Every structure is written in structure tokens, then in C-alpha cells.
């Protein structure tokens, strides 16, 4: 893209955003909040897909397990979930290591479909185990601050949800820093681009995979904890996140972390845009998928065979 074109495009988007903001400010507010949740959950998947090259179908289930652990830690020790989040993330990092060492490591040489179905099996085991232990009855933590609202003139909206875009930005910033500035991160990027080449130059590919997978498990568990503060959890709560994240990562293009944020923003705002028209909410599901297909097709049209 030329510079002029880019300027033109971003100017157009800014004006569009301004119009929407003046016309119906809630579209933008809720859209950004929604996009934040999408992006923060999808980023760890993009990380694993970009570096370990596996589609982790247990992604959402790991979020769910993190949320349940947070729930039980909070209830047992009377902790605020936002504090319980940290020890849980550590435990989930270890769980990620165990899962990697026991299962995923051994399928990396096999066709990618094996990893897909392996993680599908893992998702089933995780989901059904939690179901057996905790039953399917939804569980909820009541935290007062989640309903904090702000009134500007006629407009009243919840502010707590901005925690999701904020977390997304922190995760993205942290990951980019990690990948670009740290030794392990640079090595991880090298592995992501060319595992064989990385091996030749002496990078311990297996260790990188282990770190990246466990890191992503810990990150998605943090999102599980945050999700718990806002929503009820139940054993199947993670499933839809797997698919949404997968779709977002595909829309962003594999390996592009900032792309995930942009894709989430576009989808989040357009969904809330449609939802703001009464009675058309049911169609917002189509927007999500139509956008994804559209973007993938347009990109493929530009000559690149993807």
C-alpha cells in the first residue's frame, strides 16, 4: 500500500468512526469493549498458531478451566478474582507444560490434522471432566465493581468492560516486546518462521514450543479469570471462543498479532452496529462470518495464494 493510500484509508476510517460516535456513541463504546474480549482471547491462539503451527481446538476449554480454577480459588480463599487470577495463571502455565510434554510434543512430526484431532480430544476430556466435577449448572461470582457505570448527559454505560480492550492491548504489547526484544522471543520468532533453520542455528525448538504453548495457556487462563468476573461459567463456555478465535486469526493472517486486534475491532464494531438496530440482532452472527469470508477472499484475490 502506498503512503497516500494508507493515509486516505485511515482518514476515512476516522471520519466514519466519528460519524458513528456522534450518531450513536454506544455502538463504538460497546463495539470496542466487545472487540477487546475477542482480541484478548484470540491473541494467545494466534501466538501458538504462528510459532508452534498448531490449531489448538482446546483453546476455549483452557479458558474454561482457568475460569473454574479462579472460581474455586476465589470462593475457597475469599479472594477477589482479579487477585486469584495470578496464582491460577501460574498453575495453568504448568498445566500447559504438562499438556505439551504429554501429548502435543509427540504429534508435531505427524500431519497437522493429528494435532487438530488431538486437541479436539483434549477439549472433550477437559470439558467433560469439569462437567463431572462441577456439573453443568452455571456458576457466578458476584463482584460489585463490574456494574460500575458512567453517565455523560443522557448516556449511561458500563465502564468495567474496558478492561477487555485494555488487557488486549497489554497482551499485544507484551507479546510484541517479548518477540522482538528478548532473546527467547527472538528465538521463538525464528522458530515460527523456519523451525528447521532455527534448529540448525542451535535453537532448542522443543523448548521454544514448550514455552510458547504454556505461555499461551497462561494468557488464555487470565482471560478466563476476567471472563468469570463478567459472566457465568459452565463447562461448555469455552467452545464458542475456540471457533471465534480461529476465525479471527484466519482473518488477520497467520502470524500477524496486530492483525488480530484490527480484525477484532472491525468485527466488534460492525456487530454492535447491527445489534443497535432493534430486531436485526439475529443477523449479527452472519456479519461475523461474512466478514471473515470476505477478507480471506479479497486477500486471496490479490494474487497471493493462501
Amino acid at each position, binding site marked *: 500500500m502506498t503512503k497516500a493510500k494508507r493515509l486516505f484509508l485511515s482518514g476515512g476510517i476516522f471520519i466514519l468512526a466519528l460519524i458513528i460516535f456522534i450518531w450513536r456513541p454506544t455502538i463504538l463504546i460497546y463495539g470496542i469493549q466487545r472487540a477487546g474480549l475477542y482480541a484478548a482471547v484470540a491473541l494467545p491462539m494466534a501466538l501458538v498458531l504462528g510459532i508452534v503451527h498448531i490449531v489448538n481446538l482446546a483453546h476455549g476449554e483452557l479458558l474454561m478451566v482457568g475460569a473454574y480454577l479462579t472460581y474455586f480459588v476465589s470462593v475457597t480463599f475469599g479472594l477477589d478474582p482479579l487477585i486469584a487470577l495470578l496464582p491460577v495463571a501460574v498453575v495453568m502455565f504448568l498445566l500447559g507444560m504438562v499438556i505439551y510434554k504429554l501429548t502435543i510434543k509427540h504429534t508435531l512430526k505427524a500431519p497437522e*490434522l493429528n494435532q487438530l484431532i488431538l486437541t479436539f480430544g483434549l477439549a472433550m476430556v477437559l470439558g467433560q471432566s469439569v462437567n463431572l466435577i462441577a456439573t453443568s449448572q452455571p456458576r457466578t461470582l458476584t463482584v460489585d465493581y463490574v456494574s460500575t457505570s458512567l453517565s455523560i448527559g443522557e448516556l449511561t454505560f458500563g465502564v468495567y468492560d474496558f478492561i477487555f480492550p485494555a488487557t488486549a492491548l497489554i497482551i499485544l504489547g507484551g507479546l510484541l516486546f517479548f518477540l522482538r526484544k528478548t532473546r527467547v522471543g527472538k528465538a521463538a520468532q525464528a522458530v515460527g518462521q523456519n523451525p528447521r533453520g532455527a534448529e540448525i542455528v542451535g535453537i532448542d525448538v522443543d523448548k521454544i514450543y514448550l514455552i510458547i504453548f504454556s505461555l499461551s495457556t497462561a494468557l488464555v487462563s487470565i482471560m478466563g479469570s476476567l471472563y468469570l468476573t463478567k459472566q457465568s461459567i459452565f463447562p461448555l463456555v469455552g467452545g464458542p471462543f475456540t471457533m471465534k478465535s480461529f476465525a479471527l486469526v484466519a482473518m488477520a493472517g497467520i502470524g500477524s498479532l496486530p492483525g488480530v486486534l484490527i480484525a477484532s475491532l472491525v468485527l466488534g464494531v460492525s456487530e454492535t452496529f447491527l445489534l443497535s438496530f432493534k430486531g436485526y440482532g439475529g443477523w449479527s452472527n452472519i456479519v461475523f462470518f461474512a466478514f471473515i469470508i470476505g477478507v480471506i477472499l479479497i486477500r486471496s484475490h490479490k494474487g497471493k495464494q493462501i
Partner: protein
Amino acid sequence: MKISPKIVIFLIIILLSIAFPFFAGPYQQSIAKNVIIYMILALSWNMLLKTGQISFGLAGFFGIGAYASVLLSLKLGIPPILTIVLGGIVTSLVASAMGMIILRLRAMYFAITTLALGEIFRVIIHNVPNFAGGAHGLILPGVIFDGNGLYTYWLFLGAALFSIGLSYYFDKSKIHLALTAIRDNETTAKVRGIDIFKYLLIVFTITAGMQGIAGGLYAQSFGFVTPESSFSGDFILLPIAMALLGGIYTTAGPVVGAIVLGVISEYLKLYIPYGHLIVYGLIIVIVILFMPNGIIGALYVKIDGRKTFGKVDQPNE
């Protein structure tokens, strides 16, 4: 033609499966029918996989076939068997139109696009109440053959044999050569003058039709369609798991995988009523870990002493 022992055994299996209702009860027959539904899905998915394309559109085509079949019976009064076939044709037509646009995509991008299209079909049907029953779905006044188990079983078996035959034919015909060439190395295939797109479109259309037929069978034998059950995600990953567990790139693999997983799941729940799906998931994990080439692949390695079976490296990305 020389009668080889192979053909004899095939014939025995076919005869046994035709005679199955005479030595098995209605419960065993209904399990067999459920297995067949998943077997057709697994087989057709595997047929497309042979070209290197991974489809997640199974549930979408299954649902289209189911709805087309039910709508054709309800609105036009066409006999059920015919609507199943027509449902398959409708699905094929939809798929070929889609294929024109999306078959350019590869690997994960193709997978996610087929998944998204399936979801779009479901949402459309869900949100258009006057056309296809909306969120509630539709019921048929009766089920196929008035619920006669014997005829229904044979119809299912016929569909299964047809699918196996089709898959086998694809393995043996010229299409197979072209397809393997695409999977192994698309660029070389192009250079050799193979019209990749044409072959992909043919296979995509045919396999979607098979999935539509499976949907029609399901709808006509249970007598209803609903958006949630007819487009259920169960019809995507379970058949793929079955194909993989049996052994991909072969015709026998998906067949064996569907039988094994279908029967095991019935078994587990008799002994572990609460929580049997944990064990089911564990079985999938363990088989993938210890039999990366599936059951058929493992058998070949055992017998052959060969380390590899078929082509196990990644489909081109």
C-alpha cells in the same frame, strides 16, 4: 476375471451386512444406522482430503441436504427416497457454486471459510421463520417406510455401500492420479497440465452431495429438522476424528474409524453413565498418540514392517 480372495471377502462382508437385521435386533440396527451416517461423512471428507483440502463444511452440507429433503417432501409432496437423492443434488449445486469462489483457498483458510459458510446457512434458516420453520424447525408427517426398520436399514446400507464404492472408485480412477499429484505438489501438477481447479470442483461437488445425502437420510429417518441439530458441530469434528482414527487417505480407514468409535461410544455409556465422554476423549487422544497413521495405518506397519503408510507429510500449505 480371476476371483481373488479379496473379492470373496468383500462379498462376504457385504452379504453379512445385508443380512445383519436377521441376526441383530432393532437396537443394533439403529446403532448401525448412526454409524453409517458418520461413515458417509467421514468417507466424503476423506475423499476431499486426498486433494489436500481440509473441509469443515460437513455440517453445513449435511444441514442443507436435510432441509432440502424435508422441504421437498413437505412442499412438493415428493416421495422420501427421491427427496434424499434430490437433497444430495441440491447440496451439490450449492457446493459447486460455492466452490467456484472458495476453492482457490488453501489449507486453514479453506477450512475456516467452509466452516463459516456452514454457519451462515444455519443462521439464514434460523432467521427466516416462514420458509423453513425458523428456530423451531420442521416435522414430517411420518418417517421413511413408515418406520419399517428393515427397509430403513437397507436404505442406509445402500447409501453406505454407494459411498464406499465411490471412494474406492476415486482411489482407482484417473481422478485419483490427478488428485494425488495436486496434493503432493501443486506446482508440478500445474506444470504437467493438470487442470487443478476442475478436479477440485468435481470432488468438492461430489463429496458435498454425499454429505447432503447423509443429511437427507437423517432427516427422513427421524422425521424432523431443526437448525441446531441439523447443522450441529458434532457432524464436523466427530467424522474427522473417525477418519483420522481409522486412517486417512484410504477408503477402509473412515469405515473402520466410524465403526470403532460409533460402537465404543455406545459401549462406554452403558458402563459409565455419568462421564463416559471423558473416556471417549481419552481414547481419541491415545489413539492419535500411539497410532499416528490410524488403525489401518498401524495394521499396515505391523504386517508390512514398513514405517510409513500412504503419505503422512503435511498437505501443502
